[in-house]
Structure formats: C-alpha cells, structure tokens
C-alpha cells in the first residue's frame, strides 16, 4: 500500500475506532440521559455542546448513552444466525435427501418474508426486548448463510480429500468438522460484515419506528428529533452520522478483515 493511500486508511480506522468507543464506552460517561436541562430544541451551549432535544434533554448525553445496544445486540444476533445457518446448510448439503429438501424449503420460505414484516410481527407478539430483535435478525439472516453453506458443502462433498477421509472410516461428524468446515469457512464468512450491517440497521430501525425501550437510542433519536430539525440539526445529524459510520465500517472493514484472516 502506498503512502498516499495509507493516510486515508489510517484516518478511517481512527474514525471507526472513535465511533465504536463512543458506542461501547459512552454509557459510562453519560451522567443521566433522561434529565431535562433546558428548553426544547435549543442550539448548542457550553453546558450542552450539542443542544437539547424535543423534551429539553441533553443531546450529547443521549448520544453517549444510546449506542451500546446497537453494537452488542447485532453482534450476538449475527453470530447466532451464522451458527444456525452453518448447521442447517451443512446438514442439508452433506446428508442430502429429505434433510436437504426440508432445509431448502425452509430457506425459500424465510427468504420470501420481508425482514421489516418479520420484525413487526414479533414485536406485535412479544413487545420490545433484546430477545425479540435477536429472533428477527436470526430468522431473516439464517437463510442467507444456510444457502451459501449448502451450495459450498455440495461442492466440497465431492472433493477427493473428503471422499478419502470418509473411505478411511472417519465418522460423519469428524468429516464435517475436520474436512468440510475449514474449506467452506471462507466463502461462508465472506459477507459476515454485510450481514452485521443489516442487523445493525434492523436493530436501529426498532428504535426509529418508536418500538424501543424509550431510553436513548441513535435510531430513535433520528425520528424523535426530525421535527425540530430547523431549530437545531444536531439531534438528527450526530446519531445519523454515527450510525452511518458504524454500518459502513461493519460492511467494508469487517469483510476485508475476515478476508485477510482466512486467507
């Protein structure tokens, strides 16, 4: 990498690290995000550098407090979806027959459901909780993983080393874990970052649509403060920029990282 390209790349890493830091460690620095500090939608002052929101609460405090769940919940949910998709795809691709038919139909059905609809149906039944969001991410994300896994497994099963391992008497489990899994990991994990970005979007959308806990949340802040945008733009601009950096970083940075590690 030339020096001319290393500087912007380094800057990008710094920005991402800063946003991640705000999201993960911000809650420790936020005093009380619910405290009313002034009039609604005031411009920045020394006391509140980003102004206030529609209820007169400090925007900076709410930004600091409102990002952690947008990192933790999507990461856990995407890991779960990847594990479940791997399991389903491996079972379908390796054993074929009825197992494969069931897995394929299930993928097909889940892919036909719009993610936002799945999320809303679950919210309708369970109300807002981390479990509800996780379930929605797993339900909508799993079929993508399982489709790729199944296709890659179908290829791998015919490769010489797999046939050899099976012929020398290795058990199904040993063949899958020791021969197939290492060889399909790269294509299956290649778009982990993309799926994480989708999960972050879905998680933030819950807050944005007004189904959150009512506590501070970057997604919710955008919809809450958009009506006061002419009085003070910071309540929309700051959470929107932070969310944007987070999703782009997940999509672009993580996929590159996974690609490098697995090479």
């Amino acid at each position, binding site marked *: 990498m030339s020096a001319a390209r290393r500087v912007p790349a380094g800057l990008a890493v710094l920005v991402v690290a800063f946003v991640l830091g705000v999201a993960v460690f911000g809650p420790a620095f936020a005093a009380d995000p619910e405290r009313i500090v002034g009039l609604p939608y005031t411009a920045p002052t020394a006391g509140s550098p980003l102004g206030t929101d529609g209820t007169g609460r400090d925007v900076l405090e709410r930004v600091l407090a409102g990002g952690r769940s947008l990192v933790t919940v999507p990461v856990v949910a995407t890991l779960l979806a990847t594990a479940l998709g791997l399991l389903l795809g491996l079972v379908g691709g390796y054993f074929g027959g009825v197992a494969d038919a069931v897995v394929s139909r299930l993928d097909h059905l889940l892919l036909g459901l719009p993610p*936002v609809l799945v999320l809303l149906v679950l919210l*309708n*039944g369970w109300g807002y909780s981390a479990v509800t969001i996780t379930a929605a991410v797993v339900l909508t994300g799993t079929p993508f993983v399982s489709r790729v896994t199944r296709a890659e497994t179908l290829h791998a099963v015919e490769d010489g080393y797999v046939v050899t391992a099976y012929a020398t008497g290795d058990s199904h489990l040993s063949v899958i874990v020791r021969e197939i899994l290492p060889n399909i990991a790269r294509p299956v994990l290649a778009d982990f970052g993309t799926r994480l970005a989708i999960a972050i979007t879905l998680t*933030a959308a819950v807050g944005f649509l007004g189904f959150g806990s009512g506590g501070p949340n970057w997604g919710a802040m955008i919809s809450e403060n958009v009506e006061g945008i002419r009085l003070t733009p910071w309540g929309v601009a700051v959470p929107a920029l932070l969310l944007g950096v987070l999703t*782009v970083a997940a999509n672009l940075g993580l996929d590159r990282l996974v690609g490098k590690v697995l090479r």
Partner: protein
Amino acid sequence: MTALRFLVRRVAATTATLLAVAVVLFAASEVLPGDAATSSLGLDATAEDVAARRVELGLDRPWPVRFADWLAGAVRLDLGTSVMSGEPVTRIIAEPLGATGLLVGVTAAVTVPLAVLVGLVSGLRRGGRADRALSAVSVVAVSVPQFVTAGLLVLLLADLVPVLPAISLPPLGGTPLDKPDVLVLPVLALTLFGAAWAGRIVRAAVIDADGLPHVEAARLAGLPERAVVWRHLLPATVPPCAHAFAWLLSGLFGGTAVVEIVFNYPGLSQTLVAAVRNHDTAVLEGVGLLLAAIIIVSFVLADLLVLLADPRLRVAAR
C-alpha cells in the same frame, strides 16, 4: 404451448408458497401472546368481559376452523375485520396501498434505468476511474440504513438548502400526485440505496456478458459499439438481473417502512406500524399476506421476462 405449461407450473408453485406464508403468519399470531379480544378491550376488562368478547369475535373456536375461515376469506379478497375500528381490513389497506404503490412506481421508474446505466458504465470500463468512484459511493449507499440517508437528506435539502418539503404529507383529501414535490426526497432516499445495490449486480452481469461468444462475434463483425451493447450485450444481462430487480422492487412495498416514517408519508408502513402498536392482528396478517403475494408474483413476472429474453429457454422447455 411451452410458455403456457411453464406458466401453469409457476402459478402452482406460487400458490403453494403463498399458502405456506399464510400458515406462518397465522401460526405466528396464534403462538405469540396477546389476542384481539384482550387488546380491543383495554386494561380494565375483567376475565368475563374477555371471555364474552372472545365468543363474540369467534376466537373460542378451535384454530383449524378459524384458519380455514380466514383463508377462505382471503381467497375471496376478504381479509377480515379490524377489531380496533370495526372496518374491513381491505378498506383500511386500500388507500395506503395506493400511496405506497405510487412511491414504489416512481422509485422503480428512476432506479431501474439508473442502475442499468451505473452497471453498464462501471462494467464496460471496469477498473477505470468512473468504476472505482461508483464502487466507493455504492458501498456507502448500500450500507447506511435508509432512514439515516433519509434523515441526512432532510438535513441537507430541507434545512440547510431549503428547496424541498421535509414532511411528505399530501394536501388534505388529495393524493401525493396533487403535490408532486413531496415525493422527491422519499424517492431520492430509496433510489440511492436501490440504484447502488442493483447497479453492482448489473455490473457483474455486464462483465460476464462482455466475454460471451456472441458479443465477441458481433464486435468482430464490425458492428458499431452501440449496437453491440444494445442488441447483444444488454439482453444477455436480463436473466441474471431480473430476479434481483424483482426482489428489490417488491421488497420496497414492505421496505419503504422506515423511509415513509421519516417523511410522514401516508403509506402502508404507517398502517403496519399502527397495527403493531394497537395489537390489530387482522390488519397485520392482511398486510403480511399482501406483501408476500406482491413478492411472489413479481418473481413469476421476472421468470417470464427471462423466458422472453432468452430464446434458448423457450426451446429447452419444449
């Protein structure tokens, strides 16, 4: 007659998938807690009130009976009645569906040509300056949540440079068409994502098609580049792209949700979100079935388009 046989097969498969979606939707509202009787009565209802209401709404009947009832209604385009307002679900849905349909239609009219243009430019000159710039913009446009894009657009075009309305409410009693400028920002937000996402797929298809023997032959025969692209290269990109566009555009009916909310646009998502807030399961099931039907039907249309674009399939199917 091959096209007819193909069509019959597709319609059968479509019906089966829709039926599966209907079962899932019904089962979900069955398994998940809370039902129409409790939610329509409010918090201070006694157990007897709820029981009486359940009988009144027919919720005391066993679920197979209710499912058959609901499905029989859906086939006759009767999606039941909202317990909250007492209105038929079809009437509640009709107007928002029109508004969302308009938004999706305009978005499609802008997105599809733009995506093809982006894909052609970056695919034919891959690795060039335009390709690299478009790729960088695409990654950002695809990753950033649509409501974030929408929020930033409002900030830019309704606040900093106030040329467009921040809120897309049509005039009272009118449709969004009476005041077309309310459509600009929502369409822009949806197009940025759609054109970037689909543009990458078109780009890949163009690169694949560029190496095909018949495109090469057309070039070697001395056809002008424009004729090569329009007559030979573009038709070859239809099969790999048709389903991507079908997925994108039909998904918009459910996916405009967050964008519609940013702009207060009176579309389907307002109805959906209100239904969830009120536990109005009949409306939720109705919209869900409708969205699934739109997705599945557009996939069949994509199949037909592919059949139209690729003469080999027509012969092979015979």
